[in-house]
């Protein structure tokens, strides 16, 4: 399971970086989203993925004696997901407005020449 996640994270990061490097605005947006998901999975992976080991100490013990599923990363991911949801929805609306104004999907068309550059 962990090995599978490692590969998945690698693929998500690679795909995200590749898409960000493209000139299309939609690909930029998708790249940002994939990178965000890759990061969330990375945090999830680092919180010890084990089956059926809740972080509850047995009544007769004082400390944990074996590996348990750490709940903190899951709380972090939840926060990160909510934040990236907000940011991504803003980004989508922004790109839609830009497309309506510039009528181009190419990031290189975003440099309206100003007087001094002419």
């Amino acid at each position, binding site marked *: 399971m962990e090995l599978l996640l490692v590969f998945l994270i690698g693929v998500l990061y690679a795909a995200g970086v590749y898409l*960000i490097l493209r000139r299309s*605005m939609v690909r*930029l947006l998708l790249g*940002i989203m994939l*990178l*965000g998901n890759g*990061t969330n999975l*990375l*945090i999830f*992976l*680092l*919180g010890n993925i084990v089956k059926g080991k809740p972080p509850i100490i047995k009544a007769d013990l004082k400390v944990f004696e074996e590996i348990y599923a*750490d709940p*903190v*990363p899951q709380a*972090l991911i939840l*926060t*990160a997901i909510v*934040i990236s949801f*907000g*940011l991504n929805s*803003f*980004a989508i609306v*922004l*790109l839609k*407005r*830009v497309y309506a*104004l*510039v009528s181009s999907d190419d*990031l290189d068309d*975003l*440099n*309206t020449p*100003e*007087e*001094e550059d002419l």
Partner: protein
Amino acid sequence: MIDNSIIATVLVHLFTAIIQLFFWKKPGPQRILSIIGAAIGFLFALSLFIKVYNGEILKMNAANWDAPFGIVFVADLFSSTLVLLTSIAALAVSLFSSVGVGKPRMRYGYFPIFHFLIMGLNGAFLTGDIFNLYVWFEVIIISSFVLLTLGGRKEQLEGAVKYMALNILASTLFLTGIGILYGITGTLNMADLSIKIPLVQDQSIVNLTAMFFLLGFGIKSAVFPLYFWLPSSYHTPPSAVAAIFGGLLTKVGLYALFRVFTLIFIPNEFMRSVLMIMAILTILTGAFGAIVKHDIRRLFSYLIVCHIGFIVGGLGLYTKIAFMGAIFYLIHDIMVKTNLFLISGVIRKMRDTLDTPKLGGLYSEYPKISLLMALVLFSLVGIPPLSGFWPKIYLFEAAFKANNYFFIGSLILASFITLYVIAKIWAEVFWKETSAEEPPTDNFKELTLVRKTLFLLPVGMLAMVTLFIGLNAEFVIQVVDRIANEMLNTAPYVQAVLGK
């Protein structure tokens, strides 16, 4: 020592913003609320600074969970100084916005978002938890996105795409770093991290994580290879927004760099030289960029980049004197850069353009206001005894002691270029005669006295603070001396947070 009032500066701006939301589309009450909120925030920040200056490091445990298990807010001298400067800048910009921002922008939520932004800045300076820092950064960037795009002009949106993409990327890198950091240490509290990081067996993964933080904060503070979003977006929003962006947004990235690289990752020889090279190239590219620009605000944007290099260089030298110089420069820079963009707003009101070839004649028309602006421009250049002069002495001294002549050379070159650029602005904007055939449109003269005062009061206020920093440098040096000590000896910080 536990003191729950340190969070007050954050809460004031939160409640101001929420109350303003009840006055949606009513610019009148929102303006008054904004000024009142900013003034109260300033008073709280001042009392926090005095408390920390006279006493010890204060902290607050959120929901009374002890560190390192809960989120802590910590006010050491570095944090509280920056909170104080933020509040001064916020008050000035709030006064300026009440006349300097158009009614349509105010109707669609300019003021509430502005206060959410200030709340985010204060929170980022005060938090003692690395993930909480990430959350505050997100509060800052989402508010800054809205402020940058509010108005929806084509240039604004084009600038915003670049700003948005790079800032989200920076946050993702920062979050990746946090994830790995939690994976190797199992804690998020910065003080606890500073104890646990040296105990990690495999230091190479620690260095790798440090690189994620360097990249993430580097994008946010606009250092050399990562600064391109700044000059292409900062000239597009209204001057009031540009003032708060130029004064504070890049500085919060610098604050995070200083905090993380003095408390958590102590940079090794390689890391220091990386920081040094970045600093030198930032100084040079910023300075050369400023030479070729005509538009005042674009020019100032490049000067921001240039002077960020000074501060990063102070971090790269990593000695007490270098820290003192860098922090002093940071204090000076926040006040002056905020003021520069406010001044560009006043000039725009007077001439309806910011392109230097079309400007002119301000000195003959407004001699007193011009002299006020000259004071700020001279402080930026660092003419003694104004505020830009003192930190440079410390930076030179630190660089000489480290035999880093490249840094000294670039400091001198950048200072000369700043002087040249400011002299050019002075000659073109203030001294040059205006062309007789087409007299410039002056929207400033027709304003009522109250509005004129509201335009000039914040500029004068910040100029006075700059003058205070310059003439009362001894006090500021005492403050930065203590901050530099806090950075080199983090034991009191750790003890104050963890209580052991």
